[in-house]
């Protein structure tokens, strides 16, 4: 099966000027390569600073890589013009870690969900609203909340709203950058279940960015481990967790707190 996404030797360097005016460089992605098949679920795991979020931004075309290629459905995203990218971006949606920052607080819930449809300008107003309501229902938000400002939602509800918004344009790839880290434990479980539910019902390819190995195993079939801007391990979730070969993976595994009766059978001692 032709992979929906092929990342080849992706490099991202950040150039910064410090106060004195001397340019400095920071290598965020150091020649990253992997492929993703359509409809699969891949988790990219690593500790802070490993480059996961940068990778997510590059795939979502919100940042321009310094070099390398990014094949999406036959197009090289790195070399595409801005006008083409604008058409491609809606198909690769990125969800941000902090739902509070990614939702305009003054807008109402309905407006937020409708905005992508408005931007694309393809549907009539009534159809937009219908689609919006069905999405809200899909993610578990009550329809009577639609007119409330987004500022009134709790963290879990905001994340649901962000997911709903990301799905409005029926993207081919959905990237979730630390989608659960900002939430309380109990809410995490709810959202995790929602994501599993969506995975089984939609044909979308899911990319999870997380530092939590247990969550990665729970949500994804494949895991890629990142460390210092490189992918150090890539394989099926169960295999990675039972037989970690790289030091970084082992460290991540060691960081998981071990409870006497763990609900995650895959990691039970």
């Amino acid at each position, binding site marked *: 099966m032709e992979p929906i996404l092929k990342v080849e030797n992706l490099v991202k360097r950040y150039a*910064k000027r410090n*106060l004195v005016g001397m340019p400095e460089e920071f290598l965020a992605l150091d020649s990253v390569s992997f492929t993703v098949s359509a409809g699969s679920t891949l988790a990219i795991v690593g500790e802070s600073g490993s480059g996961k979020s940068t990778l997510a931004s590059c795939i979502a075309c919100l940042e321009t890589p310094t070099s390398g290629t990014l094949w999406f459905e036959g197009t090289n995203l790195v070399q595409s013009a801005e006008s083409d990218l604008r058409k491609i971006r809606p198909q690769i949606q990125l969800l941000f870690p902090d739902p509070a920052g990614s939702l305009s607080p003054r807008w109402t819930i309905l407006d937020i969900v409708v905005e992508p449809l408005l931007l694309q300008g393809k549907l009539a107003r009534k159809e937009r609203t219908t689609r919006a309501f069905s999405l809200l229902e899909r993610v578990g938000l009550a329809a009577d909340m639609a007119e409330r400002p987004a500022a009134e939602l709790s963290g879990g509800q905001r994340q649901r709203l962000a997911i709903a918004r990301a799905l409005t344009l029926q993207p081919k790839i959905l990237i979730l950058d630390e989608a659960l880290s900002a939430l309380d434990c109990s809410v995490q479980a709810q959202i995790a279940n929602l994501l599993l539910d969506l995975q089984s019902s939609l044909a979308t390819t899911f990319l999870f960015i997380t530092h939590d190995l247990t969550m990665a195993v729970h949500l994804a079939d494949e895991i890629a481990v990142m460390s210092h801007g490189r992918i150090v391990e890539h394989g099926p979730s169960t295999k990675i967790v039972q037989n970690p070969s790289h030091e970084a993976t082992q460290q991540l595994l060691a960081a998981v707190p071990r409870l006497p009766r763990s609900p995650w059978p895959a990691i039970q001692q």
Partner: protein
Amino acid sequence: MMRYLLRRLAHAFLLVVSVSILAFLFTTLAPGNYFDEIRLNPQIAPETMVALRAQYQLDRPLPIRYASWLNSVLHGEMGYSFAYNTPVVPLLLVRAKNTLLLTITATLIAWAIALPLGVWSADRLGRLPDRVISWSTATLLVIPDLALALGLLVLTVRTGWFPTGGMASVDFESLSSLNKIRDLVLHMTLPVAALVLSALPPLVRHVRAAVADVLHAPFLLAAEGHGIPRRTLLFRYALPAAAHPLVSLFGFSIGALLSGSLLIEVVMSWPGLGPFLLEAILARDIYVVIGGVLFSTIFLSAGNFLADLLLYWVDPRIRTESTSR
């Protein structure tokens, strides 16, 4: 780090040069042939005219005039005053000295009052002392400095407590040294009072805001828990932490030393830079105007640069930022 400061210095220098160019540009907006007027001016002797024309290329196009002026600056002169028939620099220096006498005194007094008042206000935030101070500063703030200066004049005219203008009494020269100082102080009182009263409200408010921000910091609560007395807490712990915005403000105060007192000098007939420049502007005495504007700009840039220096010294965050990564 030295490089940071050198960069700021180069910046300031570039700024001053740009201002000089701008100032020259503006003078060419004057309609009519200014230099024909000069030629017709009977006060200027023909030999002087010829010498001036040679030195300053008076009837050549703008870039050449600018270049020759720049040349004279490098030799320590700044052009020639047509109204006074003398080089500009000595004239400006005398006047600038008078202005600085006023403004330095006023700035020192204003800060000396504003710091304790602001700190005290922040300490008693919301309670009576704070409200009294806030109300008084608000009242002063809404009175325009023009009204303040004129008001002080009216007051003094009615009561005769202070001289109503100028820098020295008529018989100044014949006074003894002690009396000379006394005379000077008497003449300075009104303008300094006006300057202090108009500068005080924003200063007090800024100090109050800056210190109030810092007072909530956990490190201060911890210090309080250690039993450190209140006054030490305020002045040796809180105030330094609030230094960043205050140092910038101080830089502004320094920058305004030459230009902030113009109105008050005019109203109180103080022979400073302000009235002198005004006169020159009305008389179209170009080089005096350019020289004066440049003097003020230099002070402003120097003030900003000083603020940068002080900030670097006072705020460790800036030091580490410039050397990290």
